[in-house]
């Protein structure tokens, strides 16, 4: 794509001998939301941090509006950072407890717009607080006086102060009550509409990602295993791992109340991801995959196209797509309660 804002090629990150991220490539267009899904240890947060050069990459390029963020000098990087903002899972933990909300929101302006008059700065802060659904008066209070959902609104306000072109959201709703999660997701969608911000939205829950994303990347043990436009992914998930993630979403209307399930046997993926470097000789998912065959042990599957907007890294996706699969039907045709 020529109109992409961010173009990531072959990004790899190692922690000692452990490969946390292996050959990740993707692009993100202006104003687009890309969902990034996977379990703990899949490399989602590592990817986010490596993009912003918060941790060093072993290999690869991150082209951002003509600049490679990984190799540019630090002055250039600092200039780009005003357009690259991030919010985190723990909204209270990411705010300085000794700073009022107003002080926290003033900081980005003081750094990047030092010429701004104090009164204008104050006006910008109050305007943004109202924009994210807080009262102007919040500026004078401290983070601990707010609930988790409100703290996440403060984090979003702070990140949006400079009207960034990209907002990286690392599990922004995972620590919030389900009743509040929608408020934050909807707020992010509204801000995107208004400011044209591109969003990288990281989550382990596909049901949340589904609402906000235009496209979705599924990661497992540091690799992208599936990439698709939202509707293509949810209509026909191709990777067994993606199916397992979908199946794991709790749904009260298809609750197996009273019926004990034989643990794990019904899941496309049993167990948990292995800890430590994946064996590089085959598919990283094969040990948890109930469809794995000989080839999965011998060859690393490459991303290959399923359709125009859909790619998967699985040797067996063709066979799985044609065979009737209980997992898939459970997702597509929920039983009414």
């Amino acid at each position, binding site marked *: 794509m020529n109109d992409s804002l961010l173009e990531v090629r072959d990004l790899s990150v190692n922690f000692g001998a452990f490969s946390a991220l292996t050959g990740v490539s993707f692009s993100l267009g202006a104003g687009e939301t890309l969902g990034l899904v996977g*379990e*703990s*240890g899949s490399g989602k947060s590592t990817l986010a941090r490596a993009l912003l050069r918060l941790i060093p990459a072993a290999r690869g390029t991150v082209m951002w509006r003509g600049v490679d963020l990984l190799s540019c000098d630090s002055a250039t990087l600092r200039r780009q950072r005003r357009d690259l903002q991030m919010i985190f899972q723990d909204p209270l933990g990411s705010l300085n407890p000794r700073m009022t909300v107003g002080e926290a929101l003033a900081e980005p302006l003081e750094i990047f717009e030092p010429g701004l008059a104090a009164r204008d700065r104050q006006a910008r802060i109050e305007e943004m607080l109202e924009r994210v659904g807080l009262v102007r008066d919040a500026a004078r209070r401290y983070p601990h006086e707010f*609930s*988790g*959902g*409100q703290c996440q609104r403060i984090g979003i306000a702070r990140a949006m102060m400079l009207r960034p072109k990209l907002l990286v959201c690392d599990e922004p709703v995972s620590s919030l*009550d*389900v*009743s*509040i*999660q*929608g*408020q934050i*997701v*909807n707020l992010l*969608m509204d801000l995107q509409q208004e400011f044209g911000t591109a969003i990288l939205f990281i989550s*382990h*829950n*596909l*049901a*949340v990602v*589904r*609402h*906000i994303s235009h496209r979705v990347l599924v990661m497992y043990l540091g690799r992208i295993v599936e990439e698709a436009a*939202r509707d293509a992914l*949810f209509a026909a998930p191709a990777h067994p791992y993606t199916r*397992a*993630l*979908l*199946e*794991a*979403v*709790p*749904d*009260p*209307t298809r*609750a*197996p*109340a009273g019926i*004990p*399930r034989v*643990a*794990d046997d019904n*899941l496309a*993926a049993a*167990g*948990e991801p292995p*800890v430590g470097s994946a064996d590089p000789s085959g598919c990283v998912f094969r040990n948890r995959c109930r469809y794995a065959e000989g080839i999965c042990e011998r060859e690393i599957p490459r991303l290959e196209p399923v359709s125009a907007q859909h790619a998967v890294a699985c040797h067996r996706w063709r066979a799985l797509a044609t065979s009737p699969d209980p997992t898939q039907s459970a*997702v597509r045709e*929920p039983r009414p*309660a």
Partner: protein
Amino acid sequence: MMQHGISVPTLGVENLQVTYAVAGGPVSAVRDVSLTVAPRECLGIVGESGSGKTQVFMAAMGLLAVNGRASGSVRFDGREILGLAPEALNRIRGSELTMIFQDPMSSLTPHLKIGVQLAEVLVTHRGFSWRDAMHAAGLILERVRVPEPQRRLQQYPYELSGGMRQRVMIGMSLLCEPKLLIADEPTSALDVTVQSQIMDVLRELRFEAAMAMILISHDLGVVAGLADRIIVMYAGRVVEDAPASEVLQRAHHPYTALLLECVPNLRDARLERMPCLPGQALGAGMQELGCAFAPRCPRATELCRLERPPLRAVHQSVQVACHHPLSP
């Protein structure tokens, strides 16, 4: 047993009040909560942060912070346990009455091997020898489907994943064959995949072990898969108490219906926006005038703002605190 009409509930909470002494006067966290859990029953407790759902059971376990006070009655297996001295409580807690929490890392001792922590429970409560206790510890890990249990016994908590640690905690809570297991947000810190595995473990235990279970969560989707009955709490009070199937098919309280709608799911065709509750839950601490949910309730009327609705039966086995419950 129930059939003989002389059933003693495993847990009976009556008119429980929990207040905290803070600068500026006492703050209520739990207001007049009554509930019962029958032997082998699984009760789900659902509510948002600050609803008092955890405080009810922290009070029951004698685990309130030093400035917290509980009044009312908590009977465990027929015996009053509210206000019991710590020594007397310690004979029950961790053996007959056990609790697991959201964060299994902070519930385990970081510098002791898993095996030692598990075995210690049996040595302390059951007078086992260390050798027998260690053997039993290995068996319990197998029961909660921890792979390679013998190797895990020799590991430290930091060497285990979050899901594995929670399995260890569940195993530990089962060692003395408790009459009641209280699980407070047992899967909220875990990935959805691991969450579904932990729920499967709990589901199996429901059918194998002769114990009652209380499952506390902010997520109705999690509770729905396991509970026989669901209690919904708001601002320190019970607002709905009904069989789980009833709650899922036709919630009576508008709050319950909205909570149900908020569970992120894969069915919802309205992709543009995610359903959510407007505003935020008032902490239980606020002054009460009328129904606490009225400011967020689409059905609220003048009556709701002036008069607090009492908890009353709308059907057999369904209780609701609402002036305008959703129709049958």
